[in-house]
């Protein structure tokens, strides 16, 4: 641990220092109902409400759009189709293949075709239904296997190869192959997609958007309206959840609002209702995974071949990086020596899938955990032994399939400790004992590890900026390029600034993400928010502190070494003044009290063409033990106990990090067990509301839920106060639940057969797997 981190943590007497469990900065506002989300911002008097007309076909040419009835509907002020867009008709973040409004070809059910502006939400939504659209149907491709057969891809197939997997598999003592399908997941942020655009002076636009990426909204709005970036300001104070679903998806909403504001000259607000949101916007990619593996008698993998194929939907969106990340995480914590990974990015006539917490990583890990579990069941040993047998080594067997050395491996310690604290061994024996005596109810238990790479894999995105003003009363205005979606980023960054300047956190005003304050910011994503924005803010605070130090040294005729900031005061030799007083003195002496900070993540470099280098600054680790009980007559399960040990480095805020671990884990449990997205043969999503799409509720959470953070384990890399990113990694701890269910299913055949269980492990899926076990008895 760096000396600076140790000393600044130890000396802090200020309120809200780094490492303390300060409440979320908006907690008081949240709990009193006064926190303003985008829909709560007071609307201008003349505001128009928008609704969007959607495609009813998965793949068709639009022959004719008749909007006469829409235009004459009560309250309607304007309508807009693709032809009315003055600039570029695109809201695709990487490749320009995502039209804002379909230009004559529709490619999924729910695609935006036209928009209506009316006096009220109700009027706009009713008017939309009056449109008459004639389609000329084209053949749709709806699922992954069909897309592979038709070679329908949004991006070229990618391959990572190391060693000679073919002969390693052929020469291995044991061989297995298998496959599984893995469902997608709706982000189900409680606050749906929303934007409000306001026309400003001289044709400029001001856009409130619920977005993880204000800078991209600014760019895409500018392109669509035929303006430049300087003409558009985007602001977001907070989101009501995002989880990746507000990384690229808000652009569609904001572009429509902005285009309509430009057209009508009035404020325009577009808020999707839940059903429209779920039908129109992208989700986690569903995957199919095929594997072939060769291994020795202890279960050590000697050669492995993976085929991953994902359903990307109708456009590229972020699918390139998401599928790359799946390839980077299909090792999880295991060394794969001779390995071939093929990744197909399938183009289908479904909504374009997008970012969701983990960003492909969970799907990659799902693949390898399936393999490891199958190996164990084939050999008839505890899966934990096979997992351990394959863990990355320390100083040997430590290079990933993309040639990055794993230098910070702590998975052995974590798993050892968790095995001890969770009483894993005894409980495995108890589960086996229980199952012998219980014909209908079966228990299962599993321990799974997580190793997750931190950084954007696109190296250029690993940059961040911050802006800090100190006012003459010693209070501070803090801004940075990150966005707040509930993860506590704003609080953490304020803690960093409080620590640097040694002032109480309530002297710092946390302000909305705003493209006019910090420009060109990356999305708040890839778990990198506090790593990057924390560092940028620290750099800005240090600049101001350096100026104040120099000034104080001069003013009090001491050396700079004699100037010490602490507990809202500054000591200069024998003189002690309050921070506010020093600031006032400095202002009188014409010292600049405003600074920007800029940070770029060090050490990373990576060559996309060869899939090699160091895409990740470091890895975050964790492990979980889950125990379940299933009913073999209904397929239902209950999660009875969960033990988690997770690595947050030296946590910036243990309360916030604990929330990320618990929340991420439960979200993962939903993905793998209850959240089923179901499309019919016409390409219509039929699970588009909480009545049919089941995210975990309060009553689904394990009553015995023991979550701990790994202690005294500072990040070995020099991150902000040696903390680690914690947004995404805990989600994948939920794989332990899936494998506990698998374990319970396998007990039906007395562990003689590999279970065939697809994800999500709904009662239906579990029942099918149980039946298969019984049939083969």
């Amino acid at each position, binding site marked *: 641990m760096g000396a600076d981190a140790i000393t600044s943590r130890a000396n802090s007497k200020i309120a809200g220092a780094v490492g303390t469990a300060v409440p979320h900065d908006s907690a008081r506002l*949240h709990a009193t109902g006064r926190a303003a989300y985008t*829909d709560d911002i007071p609307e201008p008097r003349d505001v128009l409400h928008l609704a969007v007309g959607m495609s009813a076909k998965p793949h068709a040419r639009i022959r004719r759009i008749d909007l006469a009835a829409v235009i004459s509907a009560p309250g309607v002020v304007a309508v807009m189709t693709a032809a009315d867009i003055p600039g570029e008709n695109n809201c695709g973040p990487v490749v320009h293949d995502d039209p804002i409004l379909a230009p004559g070809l529709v490619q999924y059910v729910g695609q935006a075709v036209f928009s209506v502006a009316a006096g009220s939400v109700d009027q706009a939504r009713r008017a939309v239904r009056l449109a008459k659209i004639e389609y000329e149907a084209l053949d749709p491709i709806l699922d992954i296997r069909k897309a592979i057969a038709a070679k329908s891809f949004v991006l070229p197939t990618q391959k990572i190869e190391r060693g000679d997997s073919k002969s390693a598999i052929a020469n291995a003592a044991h061989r297995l192959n298998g496959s599984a399908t893995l469902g997608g997941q709706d982000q189900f942020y409680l606050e749906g997609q929303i934007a409000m655009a306001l026309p400003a002076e001289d044709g400029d636009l001001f856009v409130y958007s619920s977005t993880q990426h204000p800078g991209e909204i600014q760019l895409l709005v500018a392109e669509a309206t035929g303006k430049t970036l300087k003409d558009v300001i985007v602001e977001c104070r907070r989101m009501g959840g995002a989880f990746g679903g507000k990384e690229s998806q808000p652009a569609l909403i904001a572009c429509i609002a902005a285009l309509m504001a430009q057209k009508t000259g009035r404020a325009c607000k577009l808020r999707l209702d*839940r059903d429209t949101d779920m039908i129109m916007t992208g989700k986690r990619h569903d995957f199919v995974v095929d594997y072939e593996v060769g291994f020795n008698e202890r279960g050590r993998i000697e050669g492995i071949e993976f085929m991953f194929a994902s359903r990307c939907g109708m456009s590229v969106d972020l699918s390139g990086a998401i599928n790359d990340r799946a390839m980077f995480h299909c090792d999880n914590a295991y060394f794969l020596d001779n390995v071939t990974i093929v990744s197909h990015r399938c183009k289908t006539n479904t909504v374009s899938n997008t970012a969701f917490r983990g960003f492909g990583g969970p799907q990659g890990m799902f693949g390898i955990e399936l393999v490891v579990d199958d190996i164990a069941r084939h050999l008839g040993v505890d899966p934990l032994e096979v997992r351990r047998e394959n863990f990355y080594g320390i100083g040997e067997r430590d290079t990933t399939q993309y040639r990055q050395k794993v230098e910070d491996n702590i998975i052995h310690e974590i798993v050892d400790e968790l095995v001890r604290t969770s009483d894993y061994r005894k409980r495995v024996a108890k589960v086996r004992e229980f199952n012998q005596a219980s014909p209908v109810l079966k228990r299962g238990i599993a321990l799974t590890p997580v190793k997750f790479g931190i950084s954007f894999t696109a190296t250029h995105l690993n940059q961040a900026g911050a802006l800090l003003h100190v006012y003459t009363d010693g209070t501070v205005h803090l801004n940075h390029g990150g966005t707040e979606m509930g993860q506590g980023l704003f609080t953490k960054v304020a803690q960093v600034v409080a620590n640097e300047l040694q002032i109480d956190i309530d002297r710092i005003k946390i302000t909305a993400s705003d493209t006019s304050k910090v420009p060109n910011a990356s999305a708040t994503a890839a778990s990198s928010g506090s790593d990057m924005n924390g560092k940028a803010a620290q750099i800005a605070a240090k600049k101001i502190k350096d100026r104040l130090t120099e000034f104080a040294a001069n003013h009090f005729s001491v050396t700079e070494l004699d100037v010490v900031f602490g507990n809202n005061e500054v000591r200069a030799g024998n003189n002690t003044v309050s921070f506010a007083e020093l600031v006032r003195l400095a202002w009188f002496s014409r010292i600049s009290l405003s600074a920007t900070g800029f940070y770029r993540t060090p050490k990373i470099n990576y060559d996309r063409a060869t899939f090699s280098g160091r895409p990740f600054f470091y890895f975050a680790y964790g492990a979980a033990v889950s125990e379940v009980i299933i009913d073999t007559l209904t397929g239902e399960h209950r999660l009875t106990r969960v033990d988690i040990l997770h690595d947050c480095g030296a946590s910036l805020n243990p309360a916030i990090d604990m929330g990320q671990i*618990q929340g991420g884990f439960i*979200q993962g449990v939903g993905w793998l067990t209850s959240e089923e997205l179901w499309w019919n043969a016409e390409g219509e999503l039929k699970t588009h509301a*909480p009545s049919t799409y089941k995210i*975990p509720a*309060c009553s689904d959470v394990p009553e015995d839920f023991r979550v701990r953070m790994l202690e005294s384990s500072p990040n070995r890399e020099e991150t902000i106060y040696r903390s680690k990113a914690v947004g995404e990694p805990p989600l994948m701890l939920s794989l332990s639940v899936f494998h506990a269910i698998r374990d319970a299913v396998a007990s039906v055949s007395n562990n003689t057969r590999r279970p065939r269980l697809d994800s999500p492990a709904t009662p239906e899926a579990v029942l099918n797997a149980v039946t298969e076990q019984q049939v083969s008895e």
Partner: protein
Amino acid sequence: MKGIAVSTTVNGDAVEYVCHGRETLLDVLRNHLGLTGAKEGCGTGDCGACSVTLDGELVCSCLVLGAEVEGRTVETIEGMADGDKLHPLQKRFLDGAALQCGICTPGFLIAAKALLDRNNNPSESEIRYALAGNLCRCTGYDKIVRAVSAAAGDMRRQQKAQARRRATR
């Protein structure tokens, strides 16, 4: 469309408004009365983000028509604190980090208060059951359940102290 005049009581204040027959209580609160603490998470009674109480009964305000509350009593999150003094539930949610993005929080607080008003000593499973109609996508619920349980304890202690004060008076 003709408006409907409604007089009702919201958070203890007599309130009058004119709404359309189709407008929900949620619309009325948010758009006519400027009370934006209740949120629309689904609009179909499945998420609890819009929770309020109607004559003390927990309801989804997205399922109640604005016209239906004539002459009745509505309590929303805005009325939970006593000026600057937070309700024990609010305090426990805050101190126990039982919120992240916070958009579900008003609904949870209203639902939890409705529970504690009729049962001041609920078991953990009673809490889980009572809150099962409120969805939270961020927290994983554990801290919410703990906060409600802790607040119940606070409220019981407060009630006891009040009873003692009354007895000694």
